[in-house]
C-alpha cells in the first residue's frame, strides 16, 4: 500500500505552472489580462518556462502551431478571458483542421460570476466546443493537475488537436493539495496505434496484385513523427511506386526522389492528378480525401481499389468510400505492412507500363511558367529562394494565397517538419507568427515566411515580437498588389470583375520593418533577385523582403473546384467562358 503523505497546499496558479513544468513545457505563447493575473504572477517565479509575449492572441495560437509543427512537441498558449479567448479562436480552429497538438489555457471570470455577463466574460467552453478536440472548465484547483495532464494527453495522442482549459480566476487563487501527476496516463482516451493484423495482410495482398499503385500521403505522416517519414521512404522503395502528397504532407517524402510526382489536388501537378485518376490501387497514408484533393467526388480515381490508413476512424468513408480501412498510427501501420511484405518476400514488379504513362504526363511540364525580363515572375522568385537556401534545410512558413501554392509547387522539400502552412482552414496571417514559433523551437534554423502583401498585414504587429526576442525570422513577400488568389478566381469565374481584391494603400513595408528594428530589402528588378535573396540570408537578425512580382500572374496548374482531375487547367489559354452556378457554389 502506498502511504498517503500529507502534502502542502498550493494555489491553482502554482499548481498550473508546476504541472506545466512536470509535463516538460518550456515555452508558452501568451498575452496577459485581468483573468490570468494570478497565473502571470506564478510564472514570474519560474524562469524555466519561457513566456513569449505576442502582440495579438491569434498570433499566440499560430506561433504555438509553428512551434508544434516544427518540433513535434505540443504548443502551449496562455490568454485572458473574453477578448483574449475569442482572439485565440481562429488559431484554435486552424489547429483543429490541421491536427496540430496544442493546449490553450484561458482565464475565466470567477465561478460565482459565470453567467452574469461579467466584465470580459465569454462562454469560452461554449465558443470553443466545436473548434477543439476537447475542452474543460475547471471548477476546483484540486482538479487542475489531473485536467492538464489529460489535456496534454488528448492534444498529443491519436489524431492531434487543440485542447482548451478554461480556468476561472478564483480557481487560480484558491488552494488545494498538490501531487505531481507526472506519468499517469489517461484510460478514457486510448487511440488505437497498431493496425489490425488481418487488415494489414489484406493490404499487402492488394499491393501485391496492383499493376498501377500510387502512394497518397498526408499530414498524418508528419504528425506520426520523423520515423514515419523514414518508414515511408522504405515502403516506397520496396514498392517502387509513385508517391504524391497533400499540401500538409509535403516534406515527408523527398522531392528529389525519382518516385516523387509532386503535390496532388487543386494546384497539384498534372502527373500526380493523372496518376491518381488512372491508378488501380491508391494507398492513402495519413490523409483525409479533402475536397481540395479529390475535386469532383464521382470522378475521383474511379478505377482504383483504395486502402485508407488513418488514426481517426471518422476520416474513413467520410467523402470517398474505400475498400480497406486500416485504423492505427500511420507510422506504425507502415512498419507492420513492410514487415508483412518482406515476410512474403514481395518483390515489386517494375510497373513498366505504369511508369511509362507517368513519364508521358510528366512531359507536359505542368509547372512551367512564362518568363519575363521586365517583371519578376513569382514562381521564379520561389525557385531562386529554394536555390539559395535549400542546403541549409530552411523551415518555410506561408500565409495563404497564390504565394502559398507557388511555394508548395516550386520549393522542393526534402525533410518533414520544415513546411508549415495553414491547409485546412487557410488562415491568412498564419505565416509570421508560425515562423516566430518555429524559430523559438530551433533558434539556429533559417526560418522564412513566404508571404503575400495582403496576408502579411493580418498579423504584421508580430514584427515586434520577433524584435523583442531577437528572432532572426525572414519574411519574403511576393508583393503582387492583389489578393492574388481572390483576383485569380474572379478572373476565372467572374469575368475579371475584380471586386475588392486590389491591395490599395499598402504601407511602405521597408519603412514599416525598419520601424520595428528589422532590416528591410526592396527587390524590384529581375536582375536584383538573386542578390536580394543573398542579402536577406546573410543579414543577421530579422529581415523583411518586399519582392515586387508580376501583378497578374496566375497559379497553374489548377483544377477548378468541382471539376475532375482530368479537367485540369494547365495554362491561361485553357480557361474559357464563365463557370456555371454549380461551379460558382463550390468553394
Amino acid at each position, binding site marked *: 500500500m502506498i502511504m498517503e503523505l500529507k502534502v502542502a497546499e498550493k494555489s491553482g496558479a502554482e499548481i498550473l505552472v508546476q504541472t506545466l513544468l512536470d509535463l516538460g513545457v518550456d515555452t508558452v505563447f501568451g498575452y496577459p489580462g485581468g483573468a490570468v493575473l494570478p497565473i502571470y504572477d506564478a510564472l514570474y517565479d519560474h524562469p524555466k518556462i519561457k513566456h513569449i509575449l505576442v502582440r495579438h492572441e491569434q498570433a499566440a495560437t499560430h506561433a504555438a502551431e509553428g512551434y508544434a509543427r516544427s518540433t513535434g512537441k505540443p504548443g502551449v498558449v496562455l490568454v485572458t478571458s473574453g477578448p483574449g479567448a475569442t482572439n485565440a479562436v481562429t488559431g484554435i480552429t486552424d489547429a483543429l483542421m490541421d491536427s496540430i497538438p496544442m493546449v490553450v489555457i484561458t482565464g475565466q471570470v470567477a465561478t460565482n460570476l459565470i453567467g452574469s455577463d461579467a466584465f470580459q466574460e465569454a462562454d469560452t*467552453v461554449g465558443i470553443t*466546443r*466545436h473548434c477543439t478536440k476537447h475542452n474543460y472548465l475547471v471548477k476546483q484547483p484540486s482538479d487542475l493537475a489531473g485536467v492538464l495532464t489529460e489535456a496534454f494527453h*488528448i492534444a498529443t495522442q491519436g489524431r492531434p488537436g487543440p485542447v482548451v482549459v478554461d480556468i476561472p480566476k478564483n480557481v487560480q487563487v484558491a488552494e488545494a493539495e498538490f501531487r505531481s501527476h507526472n506519468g499517469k496516463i489517461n484510460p*478514457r*482516451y486510448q487511440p488505437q496505434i497498431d493496425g489490425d493484423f488481418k487488415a494489414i495482410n489484406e493490404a499487402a495482398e492488394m499491393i501485391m496484385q496492383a499493376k498501377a499503385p500510387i502512394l497518397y500521403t498526408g499530414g498524418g505522416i508528419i504528425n506520426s513523427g520523423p520515423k514515419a517519414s523514414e518508414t515511408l521512404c522504405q515502403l516506397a522503395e520496396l514498392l517502387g511506386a509513385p508517391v504524391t502528397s497533400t499540401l500538409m504532407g509535403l516534406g515527408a517524402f523527398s522531392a528529389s526522389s525519382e518516385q516523387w510526382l509532386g503535390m496532388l489536388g487543386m494546384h497539384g501537378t498534372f502527373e500526380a492528378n493523372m496518376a491518381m485518376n488512372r491508378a488501380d490501387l491508391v494507398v492513402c497514408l495519413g490523409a483525409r480525401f479533402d475536397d481540395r484533393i479529390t475535386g469532383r467526388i464521382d470522378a475521383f480515381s474511379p478505377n482504383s481499389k483504395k486502402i485508407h490508413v488513418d488514426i481517426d*476512424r*471518422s476520416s474513413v468513408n*467520410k467523402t470517398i468510400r474505400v475498400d480497406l480501412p486500416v485504423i492505427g498510427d500511420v507510422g506504425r501501420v507502415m512498419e507492420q505492412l513492410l514487415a508483412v511484405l518482406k515476410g512474403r518476400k514481395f518483390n515489386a514488379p517494375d510497373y513498366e507500363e505504369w511508369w511509362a504513362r507517368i513519364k508521358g504526363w510528366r512531359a507536359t511540364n505542368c509547372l512551367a511558367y512564362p518568363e519575363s525580363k521586365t517583371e519578376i515572375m513569382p514562381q521564379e522568385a520561389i525557385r531562386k529562394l529554394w536555390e539559395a537556401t535549400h542546403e541549409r534545410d530552411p523551415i518555410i512558413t506561408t500565409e495563404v494565397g497564390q504565394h502559398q501554392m507557388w511555394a508548395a509547387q516550386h520549393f522542393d522539400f526534402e525533410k518533414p517538419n520544415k513546411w508549415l502552412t495553414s491547409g485546412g482552414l487557410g488562415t491568412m496571417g498564419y505565416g509570421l507568427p508560425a515562423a516566430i514559433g518555429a524559430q523559438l523551437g530551433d533558434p539556429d534554423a533559417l526560418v522564412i515566411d513566404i508571404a503575400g502583401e495582403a496576408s502579411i498585414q493580418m498579423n504584421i504587429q508580430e514584427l515586434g515580437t520577433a524584435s523583442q526576442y531577437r528572432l532572426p525570422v525572414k519574411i519574403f513577400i511576393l508583393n503582387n498588389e492583389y489578393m492574388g488568389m481572390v483576383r485569380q478566381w474572379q478572373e476565372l469565374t467572374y469575368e475579371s470583375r475584380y471586386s475588392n481584391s486590389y491591395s490599395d494603400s499598402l504601407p511602405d513595408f521597408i519603412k514599416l520593418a525598419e520601424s520595428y528594428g528589422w532590416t528591410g530589402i526592396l527587390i524590384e528588378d529581375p536582375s536584383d533577385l538573386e542578390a536580394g535573396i543573398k542579402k536577406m540570408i546573410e543579414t543577421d537578425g530579422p529581415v523583411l523582403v518586399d519582392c515586387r512580382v508580376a501583378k497578374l500572374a496566375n497559379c497553374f496548374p489548377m483544377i477548378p473546384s468541382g471539376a475532375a482531375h482530368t479537367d485540369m487547367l494547365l495554362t491561361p489559354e485553357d480557361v474559357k467562358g464563365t463557370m456555371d*452556378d454549380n461551379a460558382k457554389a463550390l468553394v
Partner: protein
Amino acid sequence: MHIKEEKVERHVLAVLVDNEAGILARIAGMFTARGYNIESLTVADISADHAISRITIATNGPPHVIEQIIAQLDRLVPVHSVRDLTEAGPHVQRELALVKVSGKGENRIEAMRLADVYRARVVDATTESFVFEITGAPDKIQTFVGLMREVGLVEVGRTGVVAIGRGPDAA
C-alpha cells in the same frame, strides 16, 4: 441552381457517456455543427456511481451519414461507446407521453374509449378534462395524439425514445 436532397433512414443509437458538465451540449452541438438531424434525444444517468449516462438518439440520414454520425460520436472524448440499435437487430423502442384533452359530452366519451383501445391510463381527471399517460413505440404515440386532436387535445408532453436490444446480452 437547386439544392438536392438525399433519401434518409431512421436509426436509433444508444450512446454511453461520462456524466459530466456540458456533455449534452457537446453531443447535440456536434449534430448541429455537422448538419445531422436529431429526431429525439433522451439522457439519464444509469450507473450506480452516477458516472455514466445513457443517451438514446433517434436520428435520420442516408446510410453514409449514419456511419459518419457514429464515427463522429465515437471520437468525442467523453463517449465510451456508440451502438446502432437499428443496425444491431431486434430491439424495443418505448416512449411515454402525457396527453391532456378537454371537452364534454360525446367527445369526452370518445376520448375515454380511444384511451382504452390504446391502453392509455388516466392519471388526472376533472369533469371536463383528462390527462392520459401512454407508453409505446413512437408511432403508436403519434397515432394516439393524432386521434386526441380530434376530440379536444389541449397539450401533450413526450419523453422521447429510449431503446434497448432484445435478448440476454448488452448491446
